[in-house]
């Protein structure tokens, strides 16, 4: 995965009042899907908003394919032509249909020619499996369909950088699987940054994963490396192992413990992405700080 960098984030810091939401974050993204994990308040959404140019960073620089996202308006506009952005929440204007919403965003993405724009809108609808809902009013769509519609606008123009804040919320397993296919296709040619709470999405889709906590990068590596950090620290036993960071009784009746020291009868088991992620956050020296 040694491709030319698409995104170069260098020492980006963002402060909201007394809260340091991003603390000198440095990150380079090449092509492929990168998962961005982190607890609420870790700064994920701030990082996503800063990268998407919706918010200016306090300091530091961001370059997308050589253009300064933090530079002059003309440079920022060039960056905006290269990105597709899905915010955490999208409010749809009243009275719009699925088609007319995407049509509206496509004009904002400078698709002036009507015929070409309409064709692009249909393509985007097709990517999220909403081809047969073009005429449906947004308010008649289900939550999952609305989320997919919001995602479809990010695909307009097939930008080389996709910045997606929790694209899979509200989707059922089948839709989520379908979406993974679409995203991994995008990842083949461009960079996809996927902020999520769903560790199974990361496991299924991402080669690389970045864990953000307290505005700092806690981990940056392959998914396999993340899983490896928990090797030998996940146990199955009849009772919770002593000193476990976290444990719960699974459906089989046995207790799964993360961290701690294994007593007699505890058997080590293969860690998952989630185990490794929870263990990593468990190592936090201080309690969670609320970031904006």
């Amino acid at each position, binding site marked *: 995965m040694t491709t030319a960098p698409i995104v170069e984030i260098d020492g980006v810091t963002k402060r909201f009042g007394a809260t340091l939401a991003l603390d000198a974050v440095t990150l380079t993204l090449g092509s492929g899907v990168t998962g961005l994990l982190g607890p609420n308040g870790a700064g994920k959404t701030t990082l996503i908003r800063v990268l998407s140019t919706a*918010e200016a960073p306090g300091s530091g620089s961001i370059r997308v394919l050589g253009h300064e996202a933090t530079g002059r*308006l003309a440079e920022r506009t*060039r960056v905006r032509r290269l990105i597709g*952005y899905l915010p955490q929440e*999208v409010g749809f204007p009243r009275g719009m*249909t699925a088609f007319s919403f995407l049509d509206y965003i496509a004009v904002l993405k400078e698709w002036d020619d009507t015929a070409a724009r309409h064709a692009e809108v249909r393509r985007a609808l097709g990517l999220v499996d909403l081809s047969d809902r073009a005429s449906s009013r947004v308010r008649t769509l289900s939550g999952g369909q609305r989320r997919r519609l919001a995602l479809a606008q990010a695909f307009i123009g097939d930008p080389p950088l996709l910045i997606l804040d929790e694209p899979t919320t509200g989707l059922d397993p089948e839709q989520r699987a379908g979406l993974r296919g679409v995203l991994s296709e995008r990842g083949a040619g461009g960079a996809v940054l996927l902020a999520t709470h769903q560790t199974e999405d990361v496991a299924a889709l991402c080669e690389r994963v970045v864990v953000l906590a307290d505005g700092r990068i806690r981990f940056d590596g392959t998914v396999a490396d993340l899983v490896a950090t928990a090797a030998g620290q996940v146990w199955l036993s009849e009772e919770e192992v002593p000193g476990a960071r976290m444990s719960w009784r699974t459906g089989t009746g046995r207790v799964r413990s993360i961290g701690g020291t294994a007593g007699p009868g505890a058997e080590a088991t293969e860690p998952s992405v989630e185990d490794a992620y929870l263990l990593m956050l468990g190592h936090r020296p201080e309690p969670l700080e609320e970031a904006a």
Partner: protein
Amino acid sequence: MSVRGGHADEALLLRYRDDACDPATAASVEAHLPTCEACRARLAGLGRAPVVDVAWGRVVAAIGTPEPSPAVRLMRRMGLSEADATLLRAARSLDGSWTIATIAVVAFAALAAIDGGSSGRALYLLVAPLLPVIGVVVAFSSSDSLADLISATPYPKARLALLRTAAVCAASVPLVIAFGAAVPPIGWLAVGWLMPALALTTLTLAAMTWIRPATAGGAAGALWLLIVAAAFATDDVGAAVASGPALGYALVSAVAAACLTVRLKSAHEPGGPR
């Protein structure tokens, strides 16, 4: 040969499609097709003409696009481009119910002035410049929940702001003038409100680069209410838009416009993310 057992074979359908059979044969194929599903399917199986896909694209666009509001339709007829009309679709203050509400309010205010009383004229003067202000506020706040998304698009936001403002003014200003002119006691106030309207609108737009649209509009409304109330207290409502204050409005407009330009240059958009 061709139509055998009442059906058209593939070779015949190919000739028919490629316009290579004699008129009489073509006629019998055309007579047969509407009655025979199998032959239609066979014909469809021979491949789709590009025109079929082009037309389907137009079908989807047509059924997926709600009718534009009367105001937008009118502007479209007067030369507004299709892309601009698409952008204005998200502005609630341009939809039909909004236009009806505007007409109702301005009609009420104008009729209140029909007996020539100063309170009626004051009401008209109070309402008139606020209609474009409210229209602009609503046009921008409807995109409030989309602010992040819109700001991350490459579209020039200054143009977007101007387009929305111009459209809202085009939809409300002529109505307000027409009602004012139709009620004689209103007199020159029917156009006198234009200067303060300009000042209040630019002021609101500039303020919207810092604060929420509704807050900005509310502040502008309160300011105008104070001015009109002060003039009303002196028994001469017209004083609020006399030549002296008019100069002040011009000055305020110029300063607010300059301020707005600077804010837009530094990428702070009215109604943008905060």
